[in-house]
């Protein structure tokens, strides 16, 4: 079976299916329908002139909402393409031998599947959503640079074509070969889809002769330029185009995440761009960037993952933004701990640049470097966990409504927890050494890249469907589709985790026959995902013509919980203007935002300063509290040392853990820093969950929990009575620490509820 033929047929199947649904829906709409009276689009064929006008319209638009739709359409095409790759990969793995397609084909598939999904699907869809909704949420007229915005979009189609020219050329060649002599087409057949892995590791990527790799590198470079342009535009929009009424304190959560995402992209993508061109030079002009005598293959890995890990967060953060935005609307409660979700987003943004080497634990880099990357990688799980806790607490006691977005939100929280926790384990060097090359890694990241990212996109598509189309989607179908999607994702990727535990190596086209039944289960799961995606397409297209018309701008009943956010307010004005639908329940319409600053908007400094001040205040209070606590604690530990139940040398172990030389002084420094930074911040963040205000009680509770970790980490070889003494002193020391910390924080008046929390 020719791979290209299968792929093209599947693609055509999806495209033609959508088109037929569209035509059928239009035709049926012409009949007098129960919703009667809205025969605006009468049934007639598009004339050539109209088609031309439409093409001109869509290719020259600079309107942020239309560009947003273009982005989303582009991303969807890429998703279908990458999804077909995935379905073929899973199909290939139905049998242990490579007898459906060849090994070469399998390698090509997983290479281009990864790149298409990560680069051409996720970021464009999120940027599309951002384009459409950010200006509405911010009360801006448009993006800061509307034409540049369009430039950013129009670089993407050529980038995708260049990157995937291998398959396009093959198909074109094969079809043309039917009419012209094959010898004319040799240049088409010279291109093959690259089979070098999505990480494009040298030396394979720098020495493979396939000329399509050059096209791929150039295509990726072009897409990187597009991403950078979009990122700059988002940042300037959020900072400078906000309505006067929207200050930093009441900036919505989705804009926050897009802002941080753009900031990460701003620094990550240009570096990848240069690295790609260096690889191109290595391949074609005899440079030595990634050759053994030059920078070596390891340099490629450093540069690649310096982009690659932040990229992971570039695609993950907008999904968390959508979750934080959508979930509260369906549980009737404001987002819990808004401020800390913002902090954790910023923390992730910063930390994401400091963990890249955890992808390289098995490459023999310096063990001290490895250890410090292990520490940062474990640390980066903390802000993600903060988000999860906040989401769960948002639902707690909420009025949870059964709707497709709810199912998707709850489902992805669950999947993300598994994906995230398995990530923490991977960040531990000995675990990673075992699992790095296995399906465990594939399971880990797919539980995130599938478990939360597309799920949140689907949730957004349902949530905003009324706003986008003025109609409601088919709710029963949507419920079914979302449940199917969550179940399919869980089935597929949990099975991959299981395969990983059995240490089945990844990236092989063949496998021992023992694993077949698990592989079949995973494949069935993936088909379920595929089916649910088709149902989604159907629902989106069909409802566009036949969905129930919205008669209110508040289909989700957001006003009753004071969550009628600016994009819906915009929609309300639009409905009133276009269809004369008056705002519903006008007595409940309120100003959803209190102006944060009056008078003229201050300078950049003035804009950032208030945020910085709150952050600094909290951090400062925490640090002072931590210092007091840690010093008191040191005194208790000193007593323990004198009595002989605590070994001072264990501090040296702490220093080694973060990659410093084994020294008690350095270890104590680390201990002090941790006592002043990590634990107070955690305390301030987690304190949100404790009942009542921060007080000595919460301090004691908190310190008791962290004492258990300390007791394990600092245990040397005490046994018997010594051990009891050790434990008692550890507990005592921590209680003192907790009291000192909580007392100081209380004294300095930390954790005042900010207005932003009150409102959300």
């Amino acid at each position: 079976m020719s791979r290209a033929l299968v792929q093209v047929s599947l693609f055509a199947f999806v495209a033609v299916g959508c088109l037929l649904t569209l035509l059928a829906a239009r035709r049926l709409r012409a009949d007098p329908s129960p919703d009667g009276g809205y025969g605006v689009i009468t049934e007639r064929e598009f004339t050539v002139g109209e088609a031309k006008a439409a093409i001109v319209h869509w290719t020259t638009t600079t309107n942020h909402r239309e560009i947003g739709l273009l982005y989303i359409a582009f991303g969807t095409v890429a998703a279908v393409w990458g999804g077909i790759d995935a379905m073929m990969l899973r199909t290939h793995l139905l049998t242990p031998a490579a007898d459906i397609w060849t090994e070469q084909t399998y390698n090509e598939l997983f290479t281009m599947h990864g790149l298409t999904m990560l680069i051409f699907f996720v970021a464009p869809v999120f940027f599309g959503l951002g384009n459409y909704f950010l200006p509405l949420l911010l009360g801006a007229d448009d993006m800061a640079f509307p034409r540049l915005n369009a430039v950013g979009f129009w670089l993407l189609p050529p980038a995708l074509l260049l990157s995937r020219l291998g398959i396009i050329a093959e198909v074109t060649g094969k079809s043309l070969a039917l009419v012209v002599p094959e010898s004319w087409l040799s240049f088409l057949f010279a291109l093959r889809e690259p089979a070098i892995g999505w990480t494009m590791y040298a030396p394979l990527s720098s020495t493979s002769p396939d000329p399509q790799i050059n096209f791929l590198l150039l295509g990726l470079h072009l897409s990187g330029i597009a991403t950078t342009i979009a990122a700059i535009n988002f940042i300037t929009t959020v900072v400078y185009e906000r309505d006067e009424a929207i200050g930093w304190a009441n900036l919505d959560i989705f804009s926050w995440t897009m802002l941080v995402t753009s900031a990460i992209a701003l620094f990550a993508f240009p570096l990848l761009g240069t690295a790609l061109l260096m690889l191109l030079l290595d391949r074609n002009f005899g440079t030595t960037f990634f050759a053994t005598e030059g920078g070596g293959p390891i340099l490629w890995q450093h540069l690649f993952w310096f982009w690659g890990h932040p990229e992971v967060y570039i695609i993950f953060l907008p999904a968390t933004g959508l979750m934080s935005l959508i979930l509260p609307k369906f549980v009737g409660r404001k987002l819990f701990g808004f401020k800390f979700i913002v902090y954790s987003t910023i923390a992730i943004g910063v930390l994401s640049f400091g963990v890249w080497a955890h992808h390289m634990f098995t490459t023999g880099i310096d063990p001290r470097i490895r250890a410090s990357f292990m520490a940062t990688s474990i640390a980066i799980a903390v802000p993600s966990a903060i988000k999860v806790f906040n989401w769960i607490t948002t639902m707690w006691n909420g009025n949870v409504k059964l709707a497709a977005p709810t199912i998707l939100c709850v489902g992805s929280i669950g999947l993300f927890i598994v994906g995230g926790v398995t990530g923490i384990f991977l960040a531990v060097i000995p675990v990673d050494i075992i699992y790095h090359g296995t399906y465990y890694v594939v399971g880990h990241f797919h539980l995130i890249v599938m478990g939360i990212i597309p799920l949140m996109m689907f949730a957004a598509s349902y949530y905003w469907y009324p706003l986008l189309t003025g109609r409601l989607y088919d709710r029963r179908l949507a419920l079914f589709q979302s449940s199917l999607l969550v179940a399919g994702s869980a089935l597929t990727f949990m099975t991959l985790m299981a395969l990983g535990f059995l240490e089945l190596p990844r990236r092989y086209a063949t496998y021992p026959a023992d694993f077949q039944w698990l592989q079949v289960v995973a494949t069935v799961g993936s088909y379920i995902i595929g089916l649910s995606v088709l149902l989604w397409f159907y629902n989106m297209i069909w409802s566009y013509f036949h969905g129930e018309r919205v008669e209110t701008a508040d289909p989700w009943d957001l006003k009753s919980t004071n969550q009628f956010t600016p994009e819906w307010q915009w929609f309300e004005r639009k409905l009133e203007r276009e269809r004369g639908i008056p705002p519903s329940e006008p007595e409940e319409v309120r100003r959803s935002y209190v102006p944060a600053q009056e008078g003229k908007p201050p300078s950049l400094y003035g804009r950032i300063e208030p945020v910085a001040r709150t952050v600094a205040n909290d951090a400062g209070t925490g640090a002072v509290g931590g210092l007091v606590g840690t010093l008191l604690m040191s005194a208790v530990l000193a007593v323990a040392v004198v009595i002989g139940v605590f070994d001072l040398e264990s501090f040296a172990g702490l220093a080694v853990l973060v990659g410093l030389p084994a020294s008690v002084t350095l270890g104590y420094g680390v201990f002090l820093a941790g006592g002043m930074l990590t634990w107070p911040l955690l305390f301030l963040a987690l304190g949100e969950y404790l009942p009542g205000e921060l007080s000595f009680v919460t301090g004691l509770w908190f310190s008791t929990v962290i004492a258990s970790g300390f007791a394990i980490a600092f245990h040397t070889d005490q046994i018997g009575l010594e051990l009891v003494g050790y434990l008692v002193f550890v507990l005592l020391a921590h209680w003192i620490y907790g009291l000192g910390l909580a007392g100081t924080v209380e004294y300095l008046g930390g954790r005042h509820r900010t207005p932003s929390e009150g409102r959300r």
Partner: protein
Amino acid sequence: MNAPFDGSDGRDDEPSETAATRADGAGHARDDQGELTDPGGPDGPIGPDSPHEPSDHDDHDEHEHRSRWPLVTGVGAGGLYGGVAIYLLGAAAGVVPPRLGIGLAVVGTVVLLAGVAGWVDEAFLAPARERAGQTKSRESYVSTTVLFLVTDVSTFGALFVYYFFIRVGAWPPETLPPLLTSLVLVNTLILIASSVTIHYAHEALHDDNRRRFLGLLGATLALGVIFLGGQALEYYEFIIHEGFTLGSGVFGSGFFALTGLHGLHVALGVGGIAVVFWRGLQGHYGPERDTSVATVSLYWHFVDLVWVFLVIVLYVGGTL
């Protein structure tokens, strides 16, 4: 409608005209006479407190502007990238004449430049010609330039990392050509001098000293061109006389990539200064209208800074 006793004969259109001007954000230009001396020209004194678009978002759907230049730019970029790839395909596999790729790349570049020029003209120059007030603050443009420079740090970063990777290894990796020549010294002085001249050009603009402004800007432009000439001469010496090329070894890769990338930046900067100079000649700038002068000079200082860093680590650091 108008009050009948207005007494003015143009009463029918006058109020609406005022309204239209206000909607543009140039509410201060009320009549034709005022416009000549109006400070609110192309780079008008738009601070945060200048009249913004009315904050009525309902009509923002209607203010449509469309542009064909983004698509042109995209097509051009696609042509350039595709052309390069086809050239490489031809050079490696011989299935297409490499010249075909070069041709496509050249056409693509021209289209790309046309797209960018059209966009710049439409977005910045046309409003300037029509003397419509700028709707965005000067600060937002300067900050956007800073954002761009941040991306540039990252662009250069990858190459510097390569260089540090090899520099900490056995050194020198091969016989190096004479790096610290008088040419480099002169070129460095020239570039630093150009940073000074552009700074004082900007100052002169602030003092409303047009002649001085244009003179110093012209000098900057000339210095930039001379620097590029010096770079070309250096490349010529190395490639023709020393046989030291991009492919000639571990150091050559880093050297030509870094200086080449920097040279590209200088070339872009020279282009930018040329545009600013030309607009200066047209009288587009004034003490309060200096946004593009500020952004271009920021960029130019950055390029200068990168060069100094480059000289220190690559030329001096490579020789030591």
